[in-house]
């Protein structure tokens, strides 16, 4: 949302329509693929797509510099790294 980056209104309503479509797809997939092995990866992919849309367009990360993008992405990478060992332990 930087004034320094000088972006214009980047199609907020279009992003909103995408978010609603993805949410409907998520709920639909959860019902239709209730017992399918494809359910979990598909739902996670849809959630990541929605979160990315909000971060990139509503939080304007798409228009920000490298520093802010790094600050936003670094804790996510760190979280994934930290989550892998206990998750592997729990599944085994």
């Amino acid at each position, binding site marked *: 949302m930087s004034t320094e980056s000088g972006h214009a209104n980047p199609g907020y309503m279009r992003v909103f329509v995408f978010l609603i479509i993805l949410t409907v797809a998520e709920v639909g997939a959860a019902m239709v693929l209730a017992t399918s092995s494809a359910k979990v990866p598909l739902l996670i992919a849809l959630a990541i797509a*929605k979160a990315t849309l909000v971060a990139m367009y*509503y939080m304007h990360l798409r228009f920000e510099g490298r*520093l802010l993008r790094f*600050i936003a992405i670094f804790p*996510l990478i760190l979280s994934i790294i*930290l989550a892998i060992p206990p998750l592997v332990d729990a599944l085994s």
Partner: protein
Amino acid sequence: MTQTTVKPHLMAEVAVAEAPHPFPVWGGMTTIKFAIWLFLASEVMFFAGLIGAYIVLRAGTPTWPIVADVLNVPLVALNTFILIVSSVTMVQAYAGIQAGDQQKLKNMLVTTTVLGIVFIAIQGIEWSALLGEGTTPSESIFGASFYVLTGFHGLHVTGGVVALIVTSIKAFRGRYSQTSHDGVELMGLYWHFVDVVWIILFTIVYLI
């Protein structure tokens, strides 16, 4: 002497860029904006810890209930829709003040606040029904992790609503302008972050 011409649709942005900032500028952004992003990064770690614990507990617990049988997914899907709409109204408030439209700023901030209150109310209804059915935090690991995850998010939404009320009051007092609206920008960043967290929680807790 050469004269630089600026296209009419870029005039507002040029005016904003040239206006003095109330906060020091560092690294191409105001220090207050840098600070809120650092805060949000710490919040990512906080929720990552909670979500990670939920996933590990769920994977390691042999008797996990079928969430669609226990939780009211349609009601919470409606709540998800409400929070997404509130993100749109929040970003429209920001777009409004960027364009110098005070009325749009006020309308959109009030709408966002109301939607945030509706979200909390619906979560209250959901919790009340679950507690009435005997799903309590002490009843099972599922109950404990569910209430901790959704409760902490609810607290963040509640904090956001309080901040939105303060931002709205400032907007009605004319404290923001086309050239000075850092408060609206920071409010938006926090509110969208709360939306992002819910998008992940809705999938992990209610759909998977």
